[in-house]
């Protein structure tokens, strides 16, 4: 119950944070030069069309009133028209967000599985060649920007070896499942189309790995070092001294506390991949929200920019809450202090 309480408090606070964010965004959008109404209908549209639109957009009213209208529209999911696609931003977001989430989710999954796995292997075989390989890999993984990985992977796996597709979400002749969630992998499973599922997975692989490389490396390094740190802790010595078998000590009493920092950082990483994703999406022609947002920014499409930032902000905050919950599950100290303060 108290965890629920903690959750509710976090959510309410996040709503206020997002509200604050919306003010910042609104200000950026309105301070920009240019007439939003003129931008919405194009440079050569007749003046009467623009005037009517100004009226409809409340652009002739004071800024505070405008913000009120903008916010109440935004809350109802209406962010106005996008300049680049010429249709409601909400429609765009509905179309592009699932692809981004799918990508970020798989990249997060790869980071978690790959990073923690490598970290454990590295810690287990500490100071052997395996460990050294993992450590060198981690260093390079961390310092190489994701777009460099994207380019290298396209060259290597896509072009030279021709193993994996480098464009699109499924092969052009693959039947696309009925859209439910918008994430093709999920929809394919829902429709029972396993061929499509695997095809979508193959298309996801390169972009997801490019995006995940940095955090795989980061996670491996953190898991390794936190396991190594904890390995010299007294509670491990104590567990061993009291006759608990090695596999239980390592797999249980060492692993769980060691995962706490990994999970916290993993959460941050996943949340920030939401924004780093744009370059990878750009390079792989992945129709995601980050790329859409990037295009919107390059083209000063203010409605789209505002909406994308708000949506990404909301996603970011949500991921952070989820991570907090997972960490609280792993770490009773946090759980207890949270419930105490609640």
């Amino acid at each position, binding site marked *: 119950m108290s965890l629920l309480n903690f959750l509710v408090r976090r959510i309410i606070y996040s709503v206020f944070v997002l509200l604050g964010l919306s003010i910042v965004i609104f200000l950026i959008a309105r301070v920009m030069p240019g007439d939003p109404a003129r931008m919405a209908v194009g440079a050569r549209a007749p003046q009467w069309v623009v005037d009517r639109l100004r009226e409809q957009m409340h652009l002739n009213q004071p800024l505070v009133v405008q913000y009120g209208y903008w916010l109440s529209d935004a809350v109802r999911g209406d962010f106005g028209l996008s300049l680049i696609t010429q249709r409601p931003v909400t429609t765009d977001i509905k179309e592009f967000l699932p692809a981004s989430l799918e990508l970020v989710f798989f990249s997060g999954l790869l980071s978690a599985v790959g990073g923690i796995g490598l970290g454990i292997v590295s810690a287990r075989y500490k100071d052997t060649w395996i460990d050294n390989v993992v450590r060198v890999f981690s260093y390079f993984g961390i310092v190489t920007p994701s777009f460099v990985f994207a380019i290298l992977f396209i060259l290597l796996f896509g*072009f030279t070896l021709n193993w994996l597709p480098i464009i699109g979400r499924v092969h052009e002749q693959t039947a696309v499942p009925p859209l439910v969630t918008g994430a093709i992998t999920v929809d394919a499973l829902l429709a029972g189309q396993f061929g499509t599922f695997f095809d979508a997975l193959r298309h996801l692989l390169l972009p997801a790995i490019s995006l995940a490389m940095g955090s795989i490396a980061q996670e491996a390094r953190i898991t390794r070092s936190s396991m190594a740190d904890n390995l010299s802790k007294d509670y491990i010595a104590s567990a061993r001294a009291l006759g608990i078998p090695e596999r239980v000590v390592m797999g249980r009493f060492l692993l769980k506390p060691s995962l706490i920092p990994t999970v916290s950082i993993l959460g941050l990483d996943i949340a920030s991949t939401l924004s780093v994703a744009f370059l990878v999406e750009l390079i792989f022609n992945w129709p995601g929200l980050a790329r859409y947002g990037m295009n919107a920014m390059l083209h000063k499409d203010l409605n789209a920019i505002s909406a994308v930032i708000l949506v990404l902000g909301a996603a970011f905050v949500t991921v952070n809450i989820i991570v907090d919950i997972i960490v609280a599950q792993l770490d009773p100290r946090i759980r207890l202090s949270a419930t105490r303060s609640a």
Partner: protein
Amino acid sequence: MAEEVSTHRGSVASITPEQIKEMERASRRENLGRNWYKFSRNPLSVIGVVTVILLILLATLAPLVAPFPKHAGPFTDFAHAKLPPEWGHLFGTDQIGRDVLSRIIFGLRSSLLMGVVVLALVVPPGVLLGLLAGYFQGMWIEAVIMRITDIFLAVPPLILALAVASVLEPNLWNGMLAVSLMWWPWYTRLVYGLAVALRNEYFVSAAEVTGASTAHILFREILPNTVSPILTKMSLDVAWVIIIGSMLSFVGLGVQPPEPSLGTMIADGARYLPDQWWIAIFPALAIVVVVLGFNLLGDGVRDMFAAQET
């Protein structure tokens, strides 16, 4: 840090302030020596320092070091375009006949400048706000500062920078400004946490009792004790800022051609993959080396301070 705290504690008795100052200075000197010793024991950190120093030298001496300094400016030589790596052009030439190596060396300038300027813009206000919020915990100052910080921290870091950069005219300075705008809250949050812990320490209470000014408490009592975490974060952040800078220029929001920047070189060079691979791959390697250097350095600084804590 631990040493300094204990010096403060001991000072309440009979030693004169001048003596304390001298002791502090001595202990700092000693720390510095010991830290450098510890730091230098780790070969990776030393590689980091050497790399960073070399890079800085290359960047500052670019006009002297680069084989073809003119190639960093408006220059075309289509007769020698797309030459693969050879003796005259170690990293080959690009689509316009410019020496890739020379352009990388000049490109280091904007990368390093970005790292330095962004941190210089970000750290003072971030730290100041963190100190204020931490010291005035529970008061409206804290509420205002930390709520604003939370708002900025609620957006994925890169997005806000891109948004700001996109509304400004694309150039290096606006890119820096944009990155700075999103970076300060991390320092505020870091220093805030430290300041909250420190304000209850004896030496702060002691200073309060003896009627020291707020400025004195903030800058002479609390600030010196937050230096090592701040330095650690800064040294690790340089690498991040450089990566983000390269991302901005990759999408055309940073340095404008013909002035070279590593991100732009990769973006443009990617068009000539895979046949003229050297145009994109060498700048990409250069970024990796730069970031790796700063990362190793940052790790070294962190380990050094971590060792000092225990």
